[in-house]
């Protein structure tokens, strides 16, 4: 995508960040960031989870102020005290999580909060249609938001930003929620924006996507800019090395420890959404002692619901769950946990921790009925505290003590505490949802080590992850989930991330199809169970 007509000489850069430093307590924020974004280009900012990309974009969008450094927009230094300041300077942001009201129309969603620009009636509608045509967004203002798919919603978000007069559009991880075809459509939209002279800042950690769409790439590592690369002259491998600054930890398993003892069996499990539609549809799988079973799927295809059903957090509509041969279907979460199922939740802040409680109380959480945390109806403070000290030492949780609140720790250390907690109390099964999401490389390697250790000890592990390398490297058996159904089983020793990715979108999994660079459009939607 080396555009020949991109502005190079005369025009000032659209955005220039100089020496931006943002300090947050205890976490890596930003340190001496320098980025120049040329006007009329697509500029990608890549870095692994927690490298400080989002912090930087919040600074640029005026959501918080940098401690040091300056921001220049179109050549003039600006001070952005709030998002409305940023909008005044023509900077708009499309958040990773959409901020749309389902029960309103597209028109209403777009004008919400910007009623002063073109009113809320026909003038606004005309403007939306004009913008939609100009940038090829295909947005129809009368549609109700709840009828729209994810890709359409994203286009509405982009249009919202344009409607407010943005000439510089920031997209925060826009492809995280999209399937590959939608990603292609998004990239067409971005090229259209560029053609119309807009500047796009694109944040991602998916290197293939970045290489295909960006004019220039800035790599961020540990809160600072480490390199700027030309996509035409770099490879994904080189970018990855820049992102982590050295050798990546490799998810891999050594010799098989799989036994023939069934520990967790899921038979024909169906879970219904509140509207009766099945979100998990007839899933059957079994995990033996010493086996890690991975579930691959685009987010929102029933993985979370499957896990919540296993954990007793969601009612089961049909089917059975057996734990070591004993039916546990319909058991309460507490009973399931007491029976020996450890749970590493997908969202540790919502489901895994009491952020404002000390670490030792977080050790008790989830195991509040079991020793060493409880003696009858009482909490065993001494026992819980001693065991927390053990977890902190054994699982290398970096903390000055067990009385600090959980939210004083970094994400990786919080996760290590959770992993340590769930590995205690002699579990038979570990249910791990995205166990290394948003943690630093060191913690990632440590958590993988712990999963390997659990497997060696003969635990059964159910692993759900969005990180395909993690899934392929850490699984003994790999299932693909699509719209609530298991549609394929892959051999982790042979499958490539590309093949897995296409299976996740319903293109099927054909081991014969091993052409290296073909991750192209799905040919046929064969959702064979």
């Amino acid at each position, binding site marked *: 995508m080396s555009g020949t007509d991109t502005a190079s000489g005369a025009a000032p850069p659209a955005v220039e960040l100089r020496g931006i430093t943002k300090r947050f307590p205890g976490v890596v924020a930003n340190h001496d960031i320098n980025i120049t974004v040329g006007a009329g280009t697509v500029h990608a900012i890549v870095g692994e989870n927690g490298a400080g990309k989002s912090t930087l974009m919040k600074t640029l969008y005026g959501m918080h102020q940098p401690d040091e450094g300056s921001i220049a927009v179109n050549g003039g230094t600006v001070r952005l005290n709030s998002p409305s300041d940023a909008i005044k300077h023509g900077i708009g942001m499309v958040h990773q999580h959409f901020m749309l009201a389902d029960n309103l129309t597209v028109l209403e969603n777009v004008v919400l909060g910007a009623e002063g620009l073109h009113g809320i009636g026909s003038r606004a509608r005309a403007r939306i249609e004009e913008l939609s045509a100009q940038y090829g967004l295909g947005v129809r203002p009368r549609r109700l938001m709840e009828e729209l798919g994810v890709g359409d919603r994203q286009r509405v978000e982009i249009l919202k930003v344009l409607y407010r007069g943005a000439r510089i559009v920031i997209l925060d991880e826009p492809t995280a929620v999209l399937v590959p075809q939608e990603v292609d459509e998004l990239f067409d939209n971005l090229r259209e924006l560029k053609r119309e002279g807009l500047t796009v800042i694109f944040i991602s950690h998916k290197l293939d996507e970045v290489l295909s769409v960006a004019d220039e790439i800035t790599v961020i590592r540990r809160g600072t800019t480490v390199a700027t690369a030309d996509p035409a002259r770099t490879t994904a491998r080189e970018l990855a090395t820049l992102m982590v600054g050295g050798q990546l930890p490799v998810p891999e398993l050594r010799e098989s420890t799989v036994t023939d003892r069934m520990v967790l069996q899921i038979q024909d499990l169906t879970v219904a959404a509140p509207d009766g539609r099945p979100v998990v549809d007839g899933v059957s799988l079994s995990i033996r002692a010493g086996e890690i079973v991975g579930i691959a799927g685009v987010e929102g295809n029933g993985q979370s619901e499957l896990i919540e059903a296993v*954990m007793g957090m969601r009612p089961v509509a049909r089917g059975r769950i057996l734990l070591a041969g004993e039916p546990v279907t319909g058991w309460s979460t507490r009973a399931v946990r007491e029976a020996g199922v450890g749970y590493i939740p997908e969202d540790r802040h919502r489901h895994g921790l009491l952020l404002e409680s000390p670490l030792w109380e977080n050790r008790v959480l989830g195991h509040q009925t079991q020793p060493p945390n409880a003696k009858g109806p009482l909490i065993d403070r001494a026992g819980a505290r001693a065991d927390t000290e053990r977890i902190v030492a054994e699982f290398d949780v970096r903390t000055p003590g067990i009385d600090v609140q959980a939210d004083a720790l970094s994400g990786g250390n919080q996760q290590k505490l959770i992993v340590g907690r769930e590995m205690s109390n002699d579990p038979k099964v570990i249910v791990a949802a995205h166990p290394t999401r948003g943690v630093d490389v060191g913690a990632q390697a440590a958590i993988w080590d712990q999963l390997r250790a659990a497997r060696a000890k003969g635990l059964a592990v159910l692993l759900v992850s969005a990180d395909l390398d993690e899934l392929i490297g850490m699984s003994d058996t790999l299932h693909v989930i699509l719209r609530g159904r298991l549609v394929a089983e892959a051999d982790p020793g042979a499958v490539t991330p590309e093949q897995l990715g296409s299976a996740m979108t319903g293109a099927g999994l054909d081991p014969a199809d091993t052409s290296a660079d073909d991750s192209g459009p799905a040919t046929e939607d064969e959702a064979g169970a």
Partner: protein
Amino acid sequence: MTKSLPTPAGFAAAAGAGVVLTVLLDMALLAPAALAIGVVAAFAVAVLFVGSSTADADSGIHRAVVAPVALVLAVLVGLFTGLVADLWLIEPVAYAIGALVGGTASAALYRGLATQLALAFAAVAAAGALALGITALVLYVTGVDPLSTFARMTDYGTQPNSLVTVVNTGTTYYLSAVAVAVGFRMNLFNIGVDGQYRLAALLAAAVGGAFVLPPGLHQLVIILVAVAVGGFWAGIAGWLKVTRGVSEVISTIMLNAIATGVTAYLLNTNRLAVEIGTNNIGTRPIAESGWVPGIPGGFMGAGREIFGLTLLAVAVGVGYWWLLNRTRFGFELRATGQSATAAQASGVNVKKMVVVSMVISGMVAGLVGMPQLLGASHYYALDFPVGLGFTGIAIALLGRNHPVGIAAAALFWSFLNQSSQILDIDGIPKEIAVVTQATMVLTIVVVYELVHRWGRRYQQRQVGRELGRERVAAS
């Protein structure tokens, strides 16, 4: 800070210095002044020889906040001990004991007081000062001299008989605030304590008046009826919340109105009530076997009696603390209050917790009317105190849902109410106390939130700093 003595020796040195100086100065000065100077000396010894054991002992904020707060608290503890001991003992001995306690407290406080807690104390003091300042301003604007008004109030409020009233009213406030606090810890807003205690007191009084039982059993039955009625009435709101999704804020307000209606219906001479004196009807008086004797106030020079059920309130406070901090149930309750999603993922049945904690809140609310009913009026009549449930909300907020904090807030609130009674005689509107109470609640809620946020950030910074130091040491 230097620490040249072992800790027990340091404590002894501090306490000893305080006692010796106090005894010596007592010959020349007023006893309280001597004690204050003695405790200050003890504090200086503590700073020099005991030192601080908290992690951030050498930071500027620690020096700026912890030292003065610990000093003031130690002096207050010493003075209070001296004053109380003075009720029984001769003055030199009483104040020597005060100095001993104050000196030990100064060493212990300086050693162990965490920065965040010290800041919370400082914040409360600042909020109190602000509230008094605003009250003074209001008085000044209305043409009354604030200083003499405050002096009148303090003078009247600290008379022995007033103090007994302060403790008695404070007892009912305390029970009411604990009832509210149980809900608050669960993120439930039980506005219905008012209806719960009134209905409970009425029915308990009716049951108590209807039979004569042996002493002990009689009181127990009355209290159990009150607890059951309060728990049932609050349980309705909990049940509505988990089965129908009705906000407990709405349902408890409505249940208050229903309780008012039910009380008015039942308190009728055709039903539960009899004529009591002129222009008053109430339930049949409880026989003497069902009374709870008061604690004579003679030891503090008062002619009135302290409610015997004040001890019940103390027990409720201890039970509340124990339940929340030592039991599994309390852990689950606090976990649910902090994060319902995390609690659910940890095997807590959140719906059950909502109902159970609402019922417990109501059971405590049922006790609110008991000290008055069994200790003083012995029947439920038209003039039974109302509105205690709403006062309880304000006091729970002031006391930050902590059993000791609530006790301090309840006594303070009750002291303001009692001491303002004198103002009517001087022709000053006694509602001025309400101004103080209201500003106090507002400022303290804001200040607590600020301190809380600051504390979280402060701890995060501390952790970052400490880990950074480790890394440097390791490399």
